[in-house]
Each structure stands twice: as C-alpha cells, then as structure tokens.
C-alpha cells in the first residue's frame, strides 16, 4: 500500500516533468520577441532564398497552425508530438527532426550508460574500502585530495587536457572522431575495435570525473556508518571485518548512493553532451552543437526535448526500483518522499 503511494508520488513527478518541459519548449520561442519562425526565416535568407523556402514556411504554418490562437497552436503541438512528429529540420529540409535524431541516440546512450555504470560501481567500491580502512593507510588518504580535484573539474575541461596529452602529445589514442577516416562502416571486428578505440578517451574523461564524486560520497557514507549500533553488534558477534563491511555497512550505504545517482543524472547528461562536442562524438550533444551552428531551431528543440524526456524517464525508473533494495521505503518512509 505504502509502495503504491510512493509510486503514485513518483508518477506525479514524472508527468509534471513531461508536461512542464513540453510547455517550456513550446512557449520559449513564442515569448522571445519576433515571429516564432524568425530563426527559420533568417536561416532561409542566409541560404539565399533556398528552393524549398515557400514550401517549408507553408508546411510549418500548416502543421503548427501559426495563424491560429496560441491555445490551438499548443494543442496541435501536443498532437504532433504524440505522433512523434518534431517538425522538419531547416538545414537539411525535408528531413524530419526525428529521423536526424535517431542515428545519434545509440552513441549517446552507449557512452553514457557504460561510463556511468563503470564510475558508479568502481567509485562506490573504492570509496567503501577507503572509508572503512582509510585511517590506516597513507595511500588511501592520498586518494581523497586527488578525487576532490578530479571532481571539481568539469568533464569537458578534462577532455581537452586528455586530448592534448594522449592524442596529440603522446599519440596513444586516435584524434577526436567516432571512427577512423575512410574505414568501412560495417559490422566487422575491425570496425568495432576502431570505434571502441575512439571511445576510450571520451569515456575516460567522464569516468575519471564522476568516479571522484562517487568515491567521495561513498567514503563519507561508510565513515558515518561506522559508529552505528548494528555495526557494533556485528563486531561484538565476532563477524569478520570483510563480512561487516560488505554485508552490513556497504549494503546500507548503497541506498543513499543510488539516490545520489538519480539526483545527479541530469548533471551527468549535461556534462556528457559537452564532452561529445569536444570529441566530435556523433551523439545528441554533437547534433545539438551542429544545429546551433546551423541555426536549425527545430532540431535544437527536438534534441533538447528528447534528452529531457529520457532523463525524466530514467529518473523515474531508478526511483521505482529503489524500494526493491530498500524495504524501509515500502513502509515507513513512503509518506515523506
């Protein structure tokens, strides 16, 4: 019962997020002075009266009903969105925005899930060990300031340094790009290895920074659990040090650590998008970057909306699986959220 109520709360947040972000995406271009398609017009003018110009403007006016009232426009925006229609791209008309977004999605999801999982798991494990035995080892103590410095650097700044050091100065890794120029794009071992080799530096820049954070947060969680009654009791029972750390302290610290993941997902995604730009990695971040450079507003809008909705959904999924590792939330904590 309490779980259902918790689920309901999370669902409200999810629906509100979707609704608010769609509304913001709809109203922002209309609040800025000038025609909502001003960006379209200026781009067309810059292209020197492109062949498709009148058709494009007509199509836009028809689909989004720009001659009708704001409310009717909003309803038709929602209707088109529900059909998955994000409008047409300007710089590559008549491509649909959704068709341009599709090929970018796997790159971003691949990079983000792999790096986030690696850094979260690795950071939590190292953080637990250092939090538990930290005081006894100089080496463990020295890790703390290193993690602190790493964490305070944004991904994309670290990315620049990594490119300079390991792709330019000592060319161990390839220069920025998704794969080598001129390689056959097919499902061969050679191509896969090439893609992986190109992905190492972008992945490393995200992993190193977020590893620092998960390490610091797990370390302080474990340190604060040390004096708890159940730990003392486990010690008094004569359980092994290993068993107390992994079976008692670590398991309890995992809960806030998982919440931390849900809370910072938005930041991770924002930072990763910029890392893609630096590495010319063909995900959504680079797509948004090139659409900004090409003043392709519908594509910017579509990309932004897609990312916001995915983050909201991912957050929701983390939130609803959270009670599975924390039985308390099914009962007492549910009301407080």
């Amino acid at each position, binding site marked *: 019962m309490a779980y259902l109520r918790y689920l309901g709360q999370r669902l409200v947040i999810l629906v509100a997020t979707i609704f608010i972000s769609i509304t913001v995406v709809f109203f922002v271009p209309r609040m800025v002075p000038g025609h909502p398609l001003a960006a379209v017009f200026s781009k067309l003018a810059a292209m020197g009266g492109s062949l498709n110009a009148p058709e494009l403007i007509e199509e836009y006016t028809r689909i989004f009903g720009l001659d009708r009232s704001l409310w009717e426009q909003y309803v038709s925006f929602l209707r088109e969105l529900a059909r998955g229609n994000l409008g047409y791209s300007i710089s590559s008309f008549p491509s649909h925005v959704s068709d341009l977004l599709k090929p970018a999605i796997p790159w971003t999801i691949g990079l983000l899930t792999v790096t986030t999982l690696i850094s979260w798991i690795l950071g939590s494990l190292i953080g637990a060990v250092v939090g538990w035995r930290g005081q006894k080892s100089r080496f463990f103590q020295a890790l703390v300031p290193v993690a602190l410095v790493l964490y305070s*650097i944004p991904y994309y700044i670290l990315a620049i340094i990594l490119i300079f050091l390991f792709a330019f100065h000592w060319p161990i890794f390839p220069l920025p790009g998704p794969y080598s120029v001129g390689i056959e794009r097919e499902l061969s071992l050679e191509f896969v290895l090439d893609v992986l080799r190109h992905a190492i530096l972008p992945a490393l820049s995200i992993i190193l920074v977020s590893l620092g954070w998960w390490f610091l947060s797990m370390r302080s969680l474990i340190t604060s659990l040390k004096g708890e009654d159940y730990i003392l009791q486990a010690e008094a029972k004569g359980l092994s040090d290993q068993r107390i750390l992994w079976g008692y302290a670590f398991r309890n610290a995992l809960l806030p650590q998982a919440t931390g993941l849900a809370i910072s997902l938005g930041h991770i*995604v*924002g*930072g990763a998008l*910029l890392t893609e730009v630096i590495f010319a990695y063909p995900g959504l971040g680079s797509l948004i970057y090139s659409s900004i450079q090409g*003043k392709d507003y519908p594509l910017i809008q579509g990309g932004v909306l897609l990312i916001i909705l995915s983050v909201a959904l991912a957050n929701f999924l983390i939130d609803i699986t959270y009670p599975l590792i924390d039985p308390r939330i099914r009962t007492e904590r549910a009301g407080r959220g």
Partner: protein
Amino acid sequence: MATARVETGKGYVGELLRNRKFLIGLIIFLTLLTLAVAGNLTTDPASRRSGSFPARLPPGPGWPLGTDTLGRSIAVQISEALPKSLQVGLIAAFLGTFFGALIGFVSGYFGGMVDAVLRVLIDVFLSIPSLLFLILIAALVKGVNVQAMALIIGAFAWPSPARQVRAQVLSLKERAFVQVARLSGMSGLEIIFRELMPHMLQWLGANFVNAFLSAVLTESGLSLLGLGPQREMTLGMMVYWALSYAAILQNLWWWWAPPVLALICLFLSLYLIHLGLDEVSNPRLRSQA
C-alpha cells in the same frame, strides 16, 4: 543580544579561517581575483581588438602568454575574461539563491497545498538538466552580452537552494522560539525574516558559493556550444575560440591552456570554499580523517 551576535560572528569567521579547505580555496580564489583585476587595470581596452599583436606567437616580451591566430594577446584576453566570468557567476548566484530561498521559505513555512505544488516544481526542475533549457533560450536570443547571460542562467539556478532551504525551514519551524514568535502574534513574513533568516544566513552562504560555481560552469558550457557572448570575452568563450581554431592540433598550447587552467583553479577554489563553509556551519559533516 547585539554583542552576542558579534561574538558568534567572530567565532564563525575564526572557525572558517582554521578550516584548511576554506583557507586554501580562499587563497586560490583571491590570487585569481588579484591577477585578473591587476591585469584588467593595466591593459588598454584598445589592445583587445584582433590584429593588435602579431599572430600565433608563443609567450614572449610584450605578450606574456602568447598570441592567438587572430592576433590577440592571450594575457589581455584572460584579464578581460576572468572578471566577466566572475560577474556572470555573481549575478546568477545572487538571483538563484535569492529566489530559491524565497520559494523554499514559502514552501516550507506555509506547507499545505502551496508546499505540495512548490515541492513538485522544485523536484521537476532539479531533475531536468537546466543546461538544456538554457540552450533553448540562448539559441533564440540574438547577441547575448554578459549580463543577459547571467540573467538567463540565474533564472534556472533556484531549484537547488529552494530544496535545501525548504528542508531547513521544516526542521526550524517546529522549534520553540518559532512557536513563541507565533504565539506572540508575529506574522508569517515577520517570522521568516526576523526569526528564521538569521539561522539560515551562514548556511545560505554555502549555497551561494555552490550556485556561483555552477553558474560559471554553465556559462563555460554554453559558450563552448557557441551560445556565449560573441563580442565579449569570458573564460568559456576563450576555450570556444581556441577550440574552433583547432588550437590543440596546431600546438598553440598557450592559447587553450591558460583559460583551461584558470577554469580549473576557479572551480577547485570555489568547491573548497563551499566544502569549508558547509563543514563549519554543519559540524556533523566534518570528516573524521
């Protein structure tokens, strides 16, 4: 009462200065600030134009940090960029902390429906990467300057302070002194400003520094995407120009390295100051190490 407050103030500052993280952070920050101000005062604004210097030269006399492809001195650029980046951070952090605190106070203090609605709003805006909304807005506004940039960033900086202020108010408002104030007939706003505010100030300081940090971070991110102030120099814009002229691959390290180093020092110092403030106002957070 007045003397008591002065004494706690002194104790607070003293404790802060004994906090190693705060002190190191403050020293780095002040050093950066001094360098920036000194640089800004000693450079002639006319020397900011492209072509004022010979192009692509490594550090040397007359251009202590070298020059870029467009014939601009890197030292001159950084003396303009650092104060402007700090300005963005300061304005945005002030807006974010102020409106965040206001929303958090109202939500936590009044409770009920107001709280229910505001809490959902706070949660929603916390979970959305605000960088994306900012991209949406900045891509539309033509020719942003530093102030406009700060306003736009500040408009999305409120959720995190709001959430934390709300939690603080919830825990404070059940305390005896608030009950007494309520019984003695103070209005809601009076209680917020005269009774709760003083308890929150130290703690709002930590929040302000945090908002400052993320505003500078956001500014550099937006600039990197080409959405920064094109006619002015910020640290993010410096990195943007260096990258768009492929400074790394042309081995013009003196072009990209100074803004990158300045950003790292800035982030590190603000983060250390934030940690220090947090530890001093929340003794429970102090690490046992």
